[in-house]
């Protein structure tokens, strides 16, 4: 025999799963949303995406090479996923230096400072995004007007409003006047020129929401593209049903109840689902393996928590969008959820508490 026999404990076979495969599956799942954003936001989207991904990989490489001096793991794909997610969460007209700061915070502070992949308590892309949102509120909330690649520009507008932002701005007004949410939306979202004066209005219908023909962060606009990616991840068994379903159900139920109570004051749940980052959050960020709880029961609790907090922030918080904050808050609870929600043990009869 030329080679030595190998000795190891059982099992002697291994599934084809690997961290690398999981990360690349997530990456492939994000391609539809990426293409949609390239279509609606043009070259700017390509720029943001490229800078974010390259910066994330570079930061991880530099830290591993010169600070930690450990094994290089940049080829496991997790930095690419973080980069794409970070790009998905920012407007496409963001200046380059801000994106780089976001990447440094996401990878450097939220991930590598805790010891790298698997040890970060919070979703790195979201930490990066929230850091930017707090540090650069103006740049992070001035949304570019969509300009589909092959369509002629209709207006002189350079920036628009998002549905949620517009709603938040007018919430007090709605509450005190006779007007309804519906009136506002049917009047259309304002579009501004360089000087900030309203030059036109964009009227939204459900089809626009589904396809993503609206203002917003580059990755969150198209519901269909995100659903496609989610379906791929389910097929590849990268995500399980617990978090998406519980998140979706709890947030929609919450929105639905308030909409029923006062449909003139609160947005209807369909708008809540399709405008803003809820879809992206549900399928791509809340399901992040590292920062979410481990057991099925825990994941459901986590999903419900995310859903409720998202809606609470959207309704009564200071920001129009609550997805990032909700997920980060629940990330912080993940260890507690892990210790309190254990899987159902085999052969242990449930004893009713005396």
């Amino acid at each position, binding site marked *: 025999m030329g080679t*030595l*026999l190998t000795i190891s404990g059982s099992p002697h076979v291994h599934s084809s799963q690997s961290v690398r495969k999981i990360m690349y599956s997530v990456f492939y799942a994000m391609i539809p949303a990426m293409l949609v954003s390239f279509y609606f936001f043009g070259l700017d989207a390509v720029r943001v995406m490229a800078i974010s991904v390259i910066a994330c990989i570079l930061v991880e490489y530099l830290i591993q090479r010169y600070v930690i001096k450990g094994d290089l793991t940049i080829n496991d794909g997790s930095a690419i996923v973080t980069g794409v997610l970070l790009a998905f969460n920012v407007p496409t007209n963001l200046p380059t230096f801000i994106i780089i700061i976001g990447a440094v915070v996401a990878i450097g502070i939220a991930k590598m400072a805790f010891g790298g992949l698997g040890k970060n308590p919070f979703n790195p892309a979201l930490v990066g995004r929230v850091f930017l949102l707090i540090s650069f509120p103006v740049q992070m909330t001035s949304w570019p007007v969509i300009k589909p690649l092959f369509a002629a520009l209709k207006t002189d507008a350079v920036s628009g409003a998002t549905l949620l932002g517009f709603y938040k701005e007018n919430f007090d007004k709605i509450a005190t006047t006779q007007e309804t949410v519906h009136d506002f939306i049917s009047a259309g979202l304002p579009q501004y020129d360089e000087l900030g004066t309203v030059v036109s209005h964009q009227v939204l219908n459900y089809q626009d929401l589904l396809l993503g023909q609206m203002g917003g962060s580059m990755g969150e606009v198209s519901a269909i593209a995100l659903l496609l990616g989610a379906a791929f991840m389910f097929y590849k068994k990268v995500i399980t049903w617990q978090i998406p379903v519980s998140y979706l159900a709890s947030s929609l139920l919450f929105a639905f109840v308030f909409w029923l109570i006062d449909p003139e004051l609160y947005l209807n749940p369909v708008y809540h689902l399709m405008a803003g980052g809820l879809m992206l959050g549900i399928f791509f960020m809340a399901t992040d393996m590292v920062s979410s709880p481990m057991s099925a029961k825990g994941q459901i609790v986590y999903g419900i928590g995310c859903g409720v907090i998202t809606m609470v922030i959207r309704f009564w918080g200071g920001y129009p969008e609550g997805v990032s904050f909700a997920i980060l808050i629940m990330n912080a609870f993940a260890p507690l959820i892990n210790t309190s929600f254990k899987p159902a043990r085999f052969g242990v009869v449930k004893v009713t508490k005396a």
Partner: protein
Amino acid sequence: MKQSSVHYKKEQIVNDVMIYAVISLSAIGVAAAVILFFVAQKFKVIEDPRIDTVQEALPSANCGGCGYAGCRAFAEAIVKAGSLEGLNCPVGGNAVMSDVAKIMGLEVEEKEPMIAVLRCNGSRENAPQKVKYEGAATCAFAHGLYSGESACPYGCLGLGDCVVSCDFDALYMDEITGLPVVIADKCVACGACVKACPRNIFELRPKGKKDRRIHVACINKEKGAPAKKNCDVACIGCGKCVKVCPFDAITLVNNLAYIDFEKCKLCRKCVEECPTNAIHEINFPPRKPKPEIKAGASEKPSPAPEPKEMPIATEIKANN
């Protein structure tokens, strides 16, 4: 524009707020002080002050080498026992123990300083690899799984549980031999490695006069043939050392020679006699060539090979 519609005079606000703040904070402070006082009275623990003094004299390594859970527990044990019989801090050695004895007003007998000794020389060269191990890098698991890469069921597994257990950085794995090495200057003989090794390869032995010592670097209890098959330098239980020892310090049990360090006078006769070089001498000056012994050796049908360079047998000094 929602400006506050209520208007106070500025001075009035300052006065009111300040007075209330001062009063309420003071009240909280007084209440807390009273509660703390009573709690402290209620839960007061009366301790022998000598425990603190003894603890201060101890090295605070908390290694557990004394057999107690940390230095505090050891100090409590000393004070409670009121004598130093059977109590020893291997880290501090005689110096610390005499300090402790002074505090306690007791006498302490001088203990010979000890060192951890690896009783295996199954390096990659001496005991060639027969299989390759993959899996959890812990000897404890590998010991339960199989006999070892060299197939010696007594030898070092080379996964370094001892190195992990050492709180004093006195052990490291030699990359070439695949065996752990004791750094003599750092070893305090706490015995952590002795406990950590699933095969009991480490033994605490006296450092010896001038740091010189002799031990059998093998614990293989197999018969000669199978032991030798796996490892060139295994003790084959031939008993030559037992015969040659003038002090009856060597015993042969289960095909394995053991040198009793209480009886050994470091004469080195057994070292020369061992046909497999399983007996190691450490820190002895090089031998003067003795022609008559060499002649005797060459008459044997299969002369023992010249002692190889054995990294394990030479001591590693921490200081340069």
